[in-house]
Structure formats: structure tokens, C-alpha cells
């Protein structure tokens, strides 16, 4: 790439008598994860299960949003399951299990993101071909999960009205890898003086053309539109 610029490129002078050899490797650093994720994606597709990776900051309301989504799918008779990542505790798995869907907790013990092998290990024993949807609730973090492919079919970036309209501009990397954005806690719009048009414009600026849903898991507002979209995505 001609317009790459080196940040720091002090060339190392080898000691006398040593001739350095440059091995051109040109490989993805996360190759091991990428290859596993690719194999998992093929397995998910063969099983006919739609895998949705939910990513947001801590406190956006991923769990409440996912619980409402799972509850609606279970009620509609759709076979669904979820895995949820957190540094510690299985609190989220317990909350999600109230939906009636099978849920497993992934505890990362300090790691700030999920990697493909952790997801794979937690799917053991589940018959993927019996599922229509599998949700992965990532560790609450808007930076670190960006680079890790989990074999998902869809990546959802969530932000809540309590976080401010400029979140997409502050974290363009994550929003840029997402397939769809969800604005949560829309029932708090007025209390937070949240400018919905500005938030949408900021999402559009960093990811032109991306679909945006405004939802409240608490009041159910906007959930119908999201469920319809998800159902269509599940049939595609």
C-alpha cells in the first residue's frame, strides 16, 4: 500500500557478523481465531442456525434486550439458545434463562472479549440443527470485541440513549463491523435529552446505509420492527 505511513521504523542494525534475514510472512495476526470462526460459520450454516453477536458497552441493556428477544421467540415457538460472556458471575445467564431458552454463561475471568474457541467450547452437547437462532451476548466493551470473529451471521451494535449521541463517532471501529444498530432504552429519550436524529446521523456517518432500530425492552417500543427484521434475516 503506497500510502501507508510508518509510525516508527527504526531499522535494527544487527551485530557484526550476523546477516539478518527478512521473512515475508504476510498473514493475519488473528489467523487462528479467524480460521476457527470460518469453520464454525460453515457448521452454523449447514445446521441452518442464525447466529447473532450482540456487542455494546457495559450497561447498554444488551441483556434486557436479549431477554425480551428470546422471550418473544420462545413464545412464537422458535427454537433458540444463547451464550453470554462476562468477566465474572453468571447473573446474566440467570436473567436470560427466565425467557425459557437454554442459556450458558461464558466467564472470561478478566478477558475483555469473547474469542471463537470460547464460544465453541460452550456449544458442546447442543444440537445446532435443532436451533433456529443462537445469540451470543459479548462481554460489555465497545473496543475489544471488534477484531474477534465468532462465526456469527449477524453482528448487532447497541447503544443506549443514556450514553450520548456521539458514541458511534467515538467508536467507529465497532460500528463499522456491525450489520445493524440498535438504540436501546428509547423510553428514556426525554429524560436524557437524547437527540435521536443526531444519533442516527452519527451512525450513518460512520456506517452509511446501516439499518437502525430504536427499542425499549422495558415498554416493548420498537421491538416488533426488530423482531420482523430478525425473522426475515433468519429466512434469508
Amino acid at each position, binding site marked *: 500500500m503506497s500510502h501507508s505511513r*510508518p509510525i516508527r521504523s527504526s531499522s535494527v542494525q544487527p551485530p557484526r557478523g550476523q546477516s539478518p*534475514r527478512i521473512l515475508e510472512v*504476510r*498473514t493475519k495476526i488473528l489467523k487462528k481465531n479467524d480460521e476457527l470462526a470460518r469453520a464454525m460459520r460453515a457448521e452454523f450454516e449447514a445446521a441452518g442456525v442464525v447466529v447473532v453477536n450482540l456487542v455494546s458497552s457495559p450497561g447498554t441493556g444488551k441483556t434486557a434486550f436479549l431477554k425480551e428477544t428470546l422471550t418473544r421467540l420462545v413464545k412464537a415457538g422458535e427454537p433458540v439458545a444463547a451464550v453470554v460472556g462476562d468477566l465474572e458471575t453468571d447473573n446474566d445467564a440467570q436473567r436470560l434463562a427466565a425467557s425459557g431458552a437454554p442459556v450458558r454463561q461464558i466467564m472470561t475471568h478478566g478477558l475483555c472479549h469473547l474469542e471463537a474457541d470460547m464460544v465453541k467450547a460452550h456449544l458442546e452437547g447442543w444440537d445446532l440443527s435443532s436451533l433456529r437462532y443462537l445469540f451470543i451476548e459479548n462481554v460489555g466493551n465497545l473496543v475489544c470485541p*471488534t477484531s474477534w470473529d465468532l462465526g456469527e451471521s449477524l453482528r448487532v451494535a447497541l447503544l443506549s440513549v443514556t450514553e450520548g449521541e456521539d458514541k458511534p463517532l467515538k467508536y467507529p471501529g465497532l460500528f463499522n463491523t456491525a450489520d445493524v444498530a440498535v438504540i436501546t432504552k428509547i423510553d428514556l429519550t426525554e429524560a436524557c435529552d437524547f437527540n435521536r436524529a443526531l444519533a442516527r446521523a452519527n451512525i450513518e456517518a460512520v456506517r*452509511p446505509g446501516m439499518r437502525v432500530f430504536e427499542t425499549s425492552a422495558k415498554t416493548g417500543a420498537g421491538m416488533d420492527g426488530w423482531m420482523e427484521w430478525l425473522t426475515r434475516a433468519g429466512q434469508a
Partner: protein
Amino acid sequence: MHELSIATYVVDLATQHASQHEGSRVAAVTLRVGSLSCVHEAALRFSFDLVCEGTPLKGAELHIVAVPVSVWCAACQAERELPSIQRFACPVCGAPSADIRAGRELDLESIELVEAALP
């Protein structure tokens, strides 16, 4: 701090490659890091030095080549480098574009091997 995970992947890959060249140690590695890869350079350097300890990469230099974001502008029929990652639009004609052509790199570009000192 996912940079620690990334550094571990880099050191594992470089160690694998170096092991195919007996009598060598790794003096430096060069990475290509896109502006959209969400990697913090200082955190990566700090992690790299930590992870290199006790491996054939101990003391190795880390070179990082930053790759800016480029998108394809359908209106101009040209690849354009973005001056800012807050606006994915052609800097020349202003047309929005989500067609990213560069900037997501997280690549191990090359490894510099030198003869290992005899014990």
C-alpha cells in the same frame, strides 16, 4: 486491553516461523495495523515486550506500520483515503461510502531473523 491477546497471537506466529529456521532468533517483527482495527499502539508495545519474555522473541523490536482507511467512491470510480474515520464519505465529492478497501488490517507482515548467539 485486548492488545495482550493480540501480542500473544503475534509471538506465537513468529515463534512458529522462527522454529523452521534452526539457529535463528527473531530480532524484529513488522505489523500492519489499520486505523479501524481498534488497536492502541502503546498498549500493544507494552504487551509485546511482556509476552516476548522467555520466548525466541525476547528483546525483539516491534515495528508498526499504520494503515489509514480507504473507501471506494462509486461516484468518482476511485479509491479514496479518508482524512477522518468519523465520516465515511468521499473526501473529494462527498458521496457516502461503506465500501472499505483498507484500514481493517491486523497483519503480521514480516519477521527479521538473525543467527542466535552460541550458548
